[in-house]
């Protein structure tokens, strides 16, 4: 059976910048995949490109995205509009700016229902109340007529999730959905999304740079660097036996509670300029391993080091 969503060799170029460089993965209903990487590694761009949310031109998008039996990269604008919200929905990073300040919560919640489900008036309001209840907002009926500025950041993010769920999406993309929130609120939102995913049997794509979040919720993790996947495997495999030097660097730089460190380990250097990628492995300039000469001139292909564990490095297998 074909997976719910399958991305094959997705590439996005913006002018001279190659921001996504051959991304491939699959996800099924009920699964959670985390896409991890630094700012500018192409995580968000790849999600936006799937839904045709990057204006083309100037962007050039190639590759294939199969969702629900249709290919999205070459889809018509009308087909994409039908998929957005109803097929795949996105919850954006900053709940303070993702809600329209001059429209009531109810107005914004019912929008997706109007577009995709043909619901309006009382029926839409009832569903809106249900959704707000589902995401844990107290006194939902009253909240519908309020404006976003009356809600706290955590509440707003709950509203954003409710809006995302409005049209029964089968894939929910959480783009740094907890990054802008307090740690305690983060935990609540993560817990909420995990529960909703089980209840609604959705596929969840979690885009984040926070490995701590990943460990808690994801089934599989994709580590992206400079628009490429450098490591892909189950959370257990990647966390227990990281194969790529970049993944190891990331894992080392997570602070450990109760353990005093004078300086938190970091990966020296900065990610390469997407307009001027090195000819070989994009991580080579910052790599501590530099396994052999091929690193400078060849891009290491993804190879399977264990069942379902892929890594793009020339370094000898270390287990």
């Amino acid at each position, binding site marked *: 059976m074909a997976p719910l969503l399958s991305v094959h060799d997705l590439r996005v170029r913006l002018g001279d910048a190659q921001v996504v460089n051959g991304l491939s993965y699959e996800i099924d209903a009920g699964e959670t995949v985390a896409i991890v990487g630094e700012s500018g590694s192409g995580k968000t761009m790849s999600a936006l490109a799937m839904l045709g949310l990057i204006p083309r031109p100037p962007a050039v998008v190639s590759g294939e995205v199969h969702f629900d039996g249709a290919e999205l990269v070459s889809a018509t604008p009308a087909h994409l*509009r039908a*998929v957005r*919200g109803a097929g795949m929905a996105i919850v954006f990073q900053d709940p303070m700016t*993702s*809600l*329209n300040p*001059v*429209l009531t919560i109810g107005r914004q919640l019912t*929008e997706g229902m109007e577009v995709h489900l043909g619901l309006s008036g009382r029926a839409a309001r009832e569903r809106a109340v249900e959704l707000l209840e589902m995401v844990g907002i107290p006194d939902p009926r009253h909240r519908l007529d309020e404006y976003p500025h009356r809600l706290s950041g955590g509440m707003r993010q709950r509203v954003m999730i409710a809006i*995302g769920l409005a049209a029964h999406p089968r894939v929910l993309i959480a783009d740094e959905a907890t990054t802008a929130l307090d740690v305690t609120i983060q935990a609540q939102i993560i817990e909420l999304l995990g529960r909703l995913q089980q209840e609604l049997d959705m596929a969840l794509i979690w885009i984040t740079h926070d490995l701590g979040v990943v460990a808690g919720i994801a089934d599989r993790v994709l580590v992206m660097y400079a628009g490429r996947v450098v490591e892909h495997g189950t959370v257990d495999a990647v966390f227990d036996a990281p194969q790529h030097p970049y993944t190891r660097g990331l894992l080392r730089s997570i602070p450990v509670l109760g353990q005093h460190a004078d300086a938190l380990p970091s990966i020296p250097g900065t990610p390469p300029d997407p307009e001027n990628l090195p000819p070989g492995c994009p991580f080579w300039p910052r790599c501590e391993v530099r396994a052999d000469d091929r690193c400078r001139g060849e891009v290491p292909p993804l190879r399977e080091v264990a069942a379902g564990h892929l890594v793009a490095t020339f370094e000898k297998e270390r287990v």
Partner: protein
Amino acid sequence: MSATVAPTSTPLPARQRGETLRLLVRNRIAVVALAVLVAFIVVAVFGKALAPYGYNSVDVADRLQGPSVHHWFGTDELGRDVFSRVLLGAAVSLKVGAVAVGISLVVGVPCGLIAGFYGGVLDDVIMRVMDVLFAFPAILMAIAVLAILGPGSTNAMVAIGIVYIPIFARVTRAAVLPVREEVYVRAARASGASDLRLMRRHLLPNVLGPIIVQTSISFAFAILSEAALSFIGLGTQPPHPSWGLMLSDGTDFINQAWWMVVFPGAAIFVVVLAFNILGDALRDTLDPRQRSLIRNARGA
């Protein structure tokens, strides 16, 4: 208030509306201006009932009489009551303002929305057309339109409306540009909203502030333009009362009958000034940055 100033606008959210009203009421001059405009509208609507004489009740025996108990504003060269004609002229001014600004709004705002939202070639084409319209001096442009359509008050409204289209297009486009980049617009698009829905639901309500201000100020300009066009004989035709036309008739008699120019002139002055003051006050209260300044200044 917003019903008279912005006839086509959807209402601002309750919070903003309440706040705007509250701050507006704290501005004394704005309250006076608002009262003047309410009086103007009442007179325009009920002028027929209020006026002691008809607009064309000629009484040659009583011609060129100064202000008196019978004729508060005196009489003109045909013995018509200037007070009645000023009252009845308010309807013409209100109608001209409403229709002309209505035309500018209905054409200009969508043009600005589309240009600002899509950008690129569409933006260039629309805004260059607007620039061409805008490059003509307003009155000259109106005269040109009237030369094509023929003189008359209806055509004057259309002409004035066309002249102010570019202003509304520009104001709207400028306000749309920053809003277009907001995350909530992207979020709405990501939930499947069409372009039309994005513009109508998400952009328009966010750019209403500047449009309302522009509407109020354009009302003043439209009334002034109608007076000017009537003054040179291209607007309202005699014997119908228009403030501009009365002013024009009165200039011939300015040495004998000052009241023929002073009262219609004062009417134009007061109404235009009131619209301008209201426009300024609205601008101050609708702009969030100015809003906090006002609050602090008044609070201190």
